[in-house]
């Protein structure tokens, strides 16, 4: 592929490059007990994990496909290769990563970002991590940041076993069961009591293989009084067959701790993104989600936060941009269990070119959550007459003293505003992009700087119809 194809000027092709011949081992398509056993052998699972996988497969077979969201008829799990191992094992130096894979991450700017503003990086290519490294200054504070496979057998094996798929049980839904059966890759993070990690850690997931699935598992435990910012980035090239992403993220925020989890998701338009994310927040702890969803053909994504401890607090800030051929069903769910817990959901969604964006917010205030406070604020912007935007709010309040608020706004770009900006010399496309960027501004400024720039770039590409 020529350099030209990957320049930013060429739109989404920045993410669309395909590397050929980078997989060393590709599991037969489909899903049988034999295949799951082979994945387990390939990965040298401990015995309990092999049993766990087979049990998850049995549950998967019994559960029904979700029938309430966007159609996933185009997805035939039987034709997805669940496991594709790249031609390398994990390295802790980019120089040792095979050149064609390293080039892929270079193009995505990962090593540069690591050098400039990250405390540690994990890079997953198809089913396995190919690179993992954490700054010495961070590691010396006792912070553990490693791939899930090493974590299963390493020093923290017990802790991993105690938490793995406890927050998102395999019985949660069909794709959680699928994940339990075939998961591979992902990261384990443990931040010890009182440790503040000043600069972010990042995992980047790249799915290169055709017709494959990526099922990484992220498990983060931020111990009492500790503080962490974790960034997750994802992208994939466009194939003409369906790819599947069914990752799982489990976050434990202990007493008085803070975790910020930022995501910029930019899967290609053939991706079914059926991801599950959940956080458990204890006493006086704080969870912050920042989420940008741009890619995929169909997404089902509803990060859930369980505010368990008294005084626990969560803020969810998200933006979704659905373009042509995309149906993005996203949302956030807050479950208030503890007294004096508070949650705030702020989202923006943009739809264009016939794209469909649905935002589901769910706030549950259980009996035990005295004096809980919750606010939901969703705004949508539709850029033409053929696009769709829906908000589906749900509130279930079981206390008498809760303070809850909900606001939803749906709008279009006003022609008068476009004319106003144009009358100062900006082109029509630029004027529209300014209005859309402005609309997204309150979310984009929450993202790390590099990602805010990427998001603005994506908005401009989307506006020009080049994405």
């Amino acid at each position, binding site marked *: 592929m020529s350099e030209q194809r990957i320049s930013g000027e060429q739109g989404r092709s920045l993410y669309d490059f395909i590397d050929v011949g980078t997989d060393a081992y590709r599991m037969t398509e489909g899903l049988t007990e034999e295949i799951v056993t082979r994945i387990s052998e390939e990965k040298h699972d401990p015995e309990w994990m092999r049993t766990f996988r087979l049990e998850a497969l049995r549950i998967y077979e019994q559960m029904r496909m979700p029938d309430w969201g966007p159609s996933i008829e185009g997805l035939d799990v039987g034709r997805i290769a669940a496991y594709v191992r790249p031609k390398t094992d994990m390295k802790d130096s980019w120089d040792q990563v095979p050149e064609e894979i390293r080039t892929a991450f270079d193009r995505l700017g990962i090593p540069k970002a690591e050098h400039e503003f990250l405390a540690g990086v994990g890079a997953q290519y198809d089913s396995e991590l190919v690179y993992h490294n954490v700054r010495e200054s961070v590691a010396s504070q006792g912070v553990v940041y490693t791939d899930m496979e090493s974590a299963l057998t390493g020093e923290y094996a017990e802790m991993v076993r105690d938490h793995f798929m406890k927050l998102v049980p395999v019985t949660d839904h069909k794709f959680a069961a699928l994940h339990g059966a075939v998961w591979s890759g992902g990261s384990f993070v443990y931040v010890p009591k009182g440790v503040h990690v000043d600069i972010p850690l990042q995992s980047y997931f790249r799915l290169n293989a055709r017709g494959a699935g990526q099922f990484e598992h992220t498990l983060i435990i931020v111990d009492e009084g500790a503080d962490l910012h974790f960034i997750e980035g994802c992208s994939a090239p466009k194939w003409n067959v369906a790819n599947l992403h069914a990752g799982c993220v489990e976050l434990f925020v202990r007493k008085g701790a803070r975790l910020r989890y930022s995501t910029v998701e930019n899967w290609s338009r053939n991706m079914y993104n059926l991801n599950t994310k959940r956080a458990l927040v204890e006493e006086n702890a704080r969870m912050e989600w920042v989420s940008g969803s741009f890619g995929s053909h169909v997404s089902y994504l509803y990060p859930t936060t369980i505010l368990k401890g008294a005084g626990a607090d969560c803020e969810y800030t998200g933006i979704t941009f659905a373009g042509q051929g995309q149906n993005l069903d996203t949302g956030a769910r807050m479950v208030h269990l503890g007294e004096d817990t508070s949650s705030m959901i702020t989202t923006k969604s943009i739809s264009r070119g016939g794209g469909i964006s649905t935002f589901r917010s769910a706030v549950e205030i259980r009996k035990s959550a005295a004096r809980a406070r919750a606010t939901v604020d969703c705004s949508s912007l539709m850029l033409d007459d053929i696009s769709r935007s829906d908000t589906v709010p749900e509130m279930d309040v079981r206390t008498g003293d809760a303070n809850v608020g909900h606001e939803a706004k749906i709008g279009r770009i006003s*022609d008068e505003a476009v*004319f106003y*900006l*144009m*009358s*100062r*010399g900006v082109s029509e496309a630029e004027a529209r992009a*300014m209005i859309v960027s402005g*609309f997204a*501004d309150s979310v984009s400024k929450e993202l790390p700087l590099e990602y805010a720039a990427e998001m603005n770039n994506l908005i401009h590409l989307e506006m020009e119809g080049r994405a």
Partner: protein
Amino acid sequence: MSEKLLEVRNLSAGIEEGEILHGIDLEIRPGETHVLMGPNGAGKSTLGNTLMGNPAYQVTGGSVYFAGQDITKAPANERACLGMFMSFQNPLEVPGLSLESFIRSAIRQQTGKPIRLMQYQRKLEETMALLQMDPSYAQRDLNLGFSGGEKKKAEILQMLMLSPKLAILDETDSGLDVDAVRTVSAGIEAYHRQTDGALLIITHSTRILEALKVDRVHILVKGQLAASGGSELVEEINRSGFEAYLKEDAQA
């Protein structure tokens, strides 16, 4: 190049529901100050918007030339890049876009050159001081939550920062208190003095004109220019209003 900066020839325009302007002729030379007056509903704002290229109005006949170029069909941004500007009667609010960064983008688009940041910053501060604007407005979202007076000042600020060859001021004085009118007038004077820019001031009151030397006054009634003359016309309107023109029209 022609001596004429703006030349409007037999211009008719309107909205979908019907024609509003019927055969307007108007010439403005560089540096001149013209005033367009007329009763409510005469089509004054329609003329301003049509000259600036608002797509909500369609030209049904005639043509508009600016700096020797036929701009009858040009989009608003091309008109702006040629040196036209309009101060809006109701400036639009744009959340998430700061006043300062918007002016910067507009200058960059118009000049096609990168901006010297220090110089730009200084000019912005000085101009805001001239207009008695709180410096914090530079970082606020464009017009969002601005009072009526602040919005009009922000329009004049944009005019002074962009230095157009012709500025159309659409009812810039309406809804302003005496002090605000004085501040806005000072801004208009500064524009006139600094750049020798031409003005087309659309107004139905005369307060804003007190401090300005007016070259030409046009009276618009029912979509047609009923009279054009020198600044004495302003005094006449002050004395007897538009009554006479409305009657004439009724007899015709």
